[in-house]
């Protein structure tokens, strides 16, 4: 007979509840939705429902691997861990670590503790650097917290949804379903801002197809339209914000028409969108007060050299309209990975401790007391800077857990060259991916289905992850592996090894909750009892928090930050590379594809990189739908298949960043960064496209992956 294990989906940041049906062979036979889960409300998408077979894929790492004479060979855990401990000790002081936003809060917490306590550095970061660091940066500056302010329930109670630079239908499908439910069922208005026509546009009231890189112009233009119409939330601005006058002065010289022209939009459309957002017509709502609007955005806003400015412009708009701090309103950066929120909450960021506590003495004190060590006070290197600092020798050893930077970093040839210069690289993951193939030691980690813990989703809901099957091979939970390394090193460093001796994951969580004020009311036992709860949840009897900023902002008053539209991108089209490359994701693959390439059905659905190109550009290049094409930038090339579609703008190309048949968009993208957040500019670079001569198609993607 099969067993049922309720747990949390390992894919995107929506955090859907799943019920794993485990068959008599200890495998996942079926994945059911969990109607009791308040985030997913009985829904799943294709990846959650059908995409967990990677757990038992033949490619799973089953033993540690150690590089001997240039080759990675199976080793015992002791051999591998001893080697890692010895080399980390030798290279302490030139160490950097990537934590995994796919692993649990417990895994993340232990890894940052190891990095700070044992390695004595704050050089720890995770993939938020590559997705929402500008959002977090801007929100911290303007509001005082980097988290999503509201809940999915608010999308369903909103009168207007402003969806910017994201494609929820592909990347957060269950959120897209909840949006459509609001639109179909309550008449909620939808505004989509995107350079590309996304599926949700089918239901949009207004679609602003802005030119890539013009976000500041779009949102300053909307702000200006709101001001012109007298719809600024005067009471809110007066009572809850600062910096308004200076900001107001900063946009005095920009008209709606000018902004619209920069963005390639119709001024009336831009104005209509602004007024709809500021003052939407009412819908049936349980909430008193004026109809609310939710502002929801993704990486179309952030992955630019001016990513932080873009986020500032968005937040200014929300403050101007007073669209946050009450039900049915709010600001939401949609988080990409299942635990990207939690990984940051747990302290896997270079500039703050768990709970976003900065390196101030009073905030450091509880940690130093608890951990019995003096902690580093200097902010560490950000992920992108760690890679850039390898060549300078500042980073010589890296410990990469559940990440594959050699698919996710920009300009992969450049990144690969950097990683090859490392003295010692440890990769801990499920599969021998591109980065692992370069490692000195590879450690096999458990998947979500094989361990206990928690994930925190995009709406700050902390949810349980439960062990459903036995670990595959000799794989172990990330936090256990990190503890084993740490204990091997403690003696040499005169540290107490008991600091890394937890009886189980719930003990790790308890320590994290004790040190993190907004998690203090949570425990595994409580989550088991009550289901997922949203932080802040400071006490055991606190019900959790659906939306933030009802009374005040963490920084007191919210702040307007003047921003001006800059260059549209670092590398713009020219005669040689006449097209703008925009990268993103598709429904059937997950990020770089390390996991989804190992799900037969997903690969069957999409096995070649779809290169979306406007019909006029296709005609100019002599391309028709389905033609094999080559996309080239100054940094690299990729092979894919032409998808001729007017969903993309003229002179634009869209490519998902999944790696298929050896090709990946990040061979093309540009390693230039937003100065504040250090996010790479994934969304804009110059390319050209060529028809490829037909050639025998690689038949076995799985085989290809194995050969990596």
């Amino acid at each position: 007979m099969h067993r049922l294990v309720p747990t949390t989906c390992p894919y995107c940041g929506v955090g859907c509840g799943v019920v794993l049906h485990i068959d008599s062979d200890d495998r996942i036979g079926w994945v059911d939705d969990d109607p009791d889960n308040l985030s997913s409300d009985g829904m799943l998408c294709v990846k959650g429902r059908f995409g967990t077979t990677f757990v038992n894929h033949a490619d799973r790492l089953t033993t540690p691997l150690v590089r001997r004479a240039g080759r990675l060979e199976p080793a015992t855990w002791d051999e591998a861990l001893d080697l890692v401990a010895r080399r980390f000790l030798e290279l302490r002081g030139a160490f950097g670590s990537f934590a995994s936003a796919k692993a649990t809060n417990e895994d993340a917490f232990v890894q940052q503790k190891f990095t700070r306590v044992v390695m004595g550095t704050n050089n720890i970061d995770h993939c938020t650097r590559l997705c929402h660091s500008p959002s977090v940066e801007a929100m911290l500056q303007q509001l005082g917290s980097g988290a999503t302010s509201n809940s999915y329930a608010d999308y369903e109670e909103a009168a207007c949804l402003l969806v910017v630079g994201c494609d929820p239908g592909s990347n957060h499908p269950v959120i897209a379903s909840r949006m459509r439910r609001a639109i179909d069922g309550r008449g909620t208005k939808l505004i989509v801002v995107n350079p590309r026509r996304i599926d949700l546009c089918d239901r949009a009231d207004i679609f602003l197809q802005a030119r890539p890189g013009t976000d500041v112009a779009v949102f300053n233009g909307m702000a200006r339209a709101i001001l012109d119409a007298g719809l600024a939330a005067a009471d809110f601005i007066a009572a809850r914000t600062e910096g308004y006058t200076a900001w107001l002065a900063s946009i005095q010289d920009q008209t709606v028409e000018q902004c619209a022209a920069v963005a390639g939009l119709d001024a009336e459309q831009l104005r209509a969108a602004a007024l709809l957002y500021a003052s939407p017509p009412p819908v049936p709502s349980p909430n008193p007060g004026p109809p609310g609007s939710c502002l929801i955005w993704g990486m179309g806003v952030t992955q630019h050299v001016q990513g932080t400015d873009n986020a500032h412009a968005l937040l200014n708009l929300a403050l101007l309209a007073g669209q946050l701090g009450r039900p049915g309103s709010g600001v939401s950066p949609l988080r990409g990975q299942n635990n990207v929120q939690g990984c940051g909450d747990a302290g896997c960021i270079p500039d703050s401790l768990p709970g976003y506590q900065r390196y101030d003495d009073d905030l450091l004190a509880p940690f130093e007391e608890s951990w019995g060590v003096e902690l580093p006070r200097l902010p560490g290197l950000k992920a992108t800077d760690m890679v850039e600092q390898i060549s300078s020798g500042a980073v010589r050893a890296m410990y990469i857990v559940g990440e594959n930077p050699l698919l996710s970093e920009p300009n992969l040839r450049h990144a690969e060259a950097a990683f090859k210069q490392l003295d010692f690289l440890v990769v801990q993951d499920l599969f021998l991916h591109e980065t692992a193939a370069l490692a000195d030691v590879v450690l096999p980690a458990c998947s979500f289905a094989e361990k206990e813990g928690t994930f925190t989703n995009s709406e700050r809901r902390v949810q349980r992850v439960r062990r459903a099957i036995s670990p595959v091979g000799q794989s172990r939970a990330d936090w256990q592996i990190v503890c084993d390394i740490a204990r091997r090193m403690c003696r040499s460093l005169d540290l107490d090894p008991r600091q890394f001796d937890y009886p189980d994951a719930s003990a790790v969580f308890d320590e994290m909750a004790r040190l993190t004020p907004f998690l203090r009311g949570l425990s595994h036992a409580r989550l088991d009892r009550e289901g997922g709860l949203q932080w802040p949840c400071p006490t055991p009897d606190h019900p959790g928090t659906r939306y933030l900023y009802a009374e005040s902002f963490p920084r007191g008053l919210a702040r307007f930050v003047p921003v001006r539209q800059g260059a549209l991108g670092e590398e713009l089209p020219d005669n040689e590379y006449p097209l703008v490359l925009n990268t993103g994701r598709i429904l059937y693959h997950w990020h770089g594809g390390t996991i989804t390439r190992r799900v037969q059905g997903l690969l069957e659905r999409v096995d070649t990189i779809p290169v979306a190109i406007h019909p006029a550009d296709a005609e100019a290049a002599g391309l028709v739908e389905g033609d094999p094409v080559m996309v080239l930038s100054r940094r690299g090339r990729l092979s894919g298949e032409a998808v001729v579609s007017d969903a993309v703008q003229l002179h634009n190309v869209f490519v998902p960043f999944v790696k298929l048949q050896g090709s990946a968009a990040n061979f093309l993208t540009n390693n230039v960064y937003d100065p504040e957040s250090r996010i790479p500019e994934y969304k804009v670079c110059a390319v050209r496209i060529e028809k490829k001569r037909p050639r025998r198609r690689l038949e076995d993607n799985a085989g290809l992956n194995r050969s990596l």
Partner: protein
Amino acid sequence: MSDSAGAMSLRSHLLPLLHESEARDGFLSTASVTALAGRLRIPIAEAWEVATSYPDFSFAPPSSLEPVCMGLSCLLLGAALTSAQRAVGCRFRCFDAPAPGLEVPVPEEALRHRGPLLAPDVADWAGLDRARALGQTAALSAVEQSGLRGRGGAYFPVGRKWSAALSEGRPVALVINAEEGEPGVFKDRSLLCRRPRRFLEGLAIAAEVLRPALIVIFINGEAQAARASLDAALDSGARLFAVRPTVIPGGGGYVLGEESALLNAIEGRKPVPRTRPPFPVQSGLFGMPTVVNNVESIAHLSVLFREGVETFRSRGTAEAPGTKLMSVSGRLPRPGLYEVSLGSSLGDLVSLAGGPLSGEVIAVLAGGPSGGFLPPSEFDRPLLPGLMHPSGAVAGSGGMVVLDSTCDIRAAALAMARFNADESCGKCTPCREGVPRVHDALQAGELEGLSDLLEVVGAASLCQLGLMAPGPIRSALHFWPELFR
């Protein structure tokens, strides 16, 4: 003046736009439906399921063959096809059966027996003035005191329906059912064609009492003449309304006689019944408390407010006051519309219409496909709400088809079973699966277990269409068992 159309969802434009598209291209194609779906922001599969649900839409270029009505009355009067013709279902001109399969305006001569409702059309708005003088509350209580019951077939008290909707305390939707899809019935078309101002005054009175946020008139898509007459009346009487009524043409389907299926149709959804509760008066069109009234019910309001409660109640019975329009057709010399007091006998009605065309009257199908056959021995039964006979006959919406010695009752019963099978909306299992099996068993003469099947269909179906579908069969088996052996 606000416009009802403005208060409706984007999706509710689907049905009118499907009609436009069909009129333009001659038929509906996947391309044209896809384009409409995109315009209305509906997924294509949802638009497609709506479009294909209606029997009146065609999905191939129109046939050049001349349509011939094969409704029951036309069949009884010898309708037959030549090779240049094609069969269509009842086209609601039973008053001149056998007839071509195209609707025509109902001629004045078809109004054979006129009471207060069919009296010459109103020249002023005295009834409305009276209602306005009374005010909302008193007018409502007049409707309640009049005992007026719905004339669509269910005979639910109109006043009670109205006050239930008003008691919800939310803006009300008023929906007029002018779909009239029951073969053999042409009373609403007759009213709209010949007495449009009578209807319009009734509608204005209803609006006066209900103060609806929107008024929708759902009219049979084939009833072009009635539609034209209605539109003209609405144009001329526009000033009577605070909210301009919107007219939505249907795509056929007997099931639209069921209120909640009608509401789905208006909303641009698949026209199938909803479960109850909630009842439409609680949560109907777009979730609003909704009053659905038949054209005839509404027209009676004009009579009521002109004559006053007492005079109105002087006709009919205490339980069922007033007159009723009976569509009488089949084998008799004077087919047409007869306005008689509720409670008069079936026999009197048959006599009024001139008795049999040849030989004897052998049966009347009372209530059409949802009714039952009665032999002359039962003709003294009164035309009243509810069953006229336990085997199935009802006054219903007033469709009475007369069979004389030339007729085959078994064939007529089979035709009704076929009609009910064809018209099943397909939502619930007993009706969708059971009714065709009833027909097939009957045709094959396999009577064993048939009564069990009739019981299942008659008790388990979701809506009245299925629940009443056994009537014609059960009654024929009851009175003429020998015909089926």
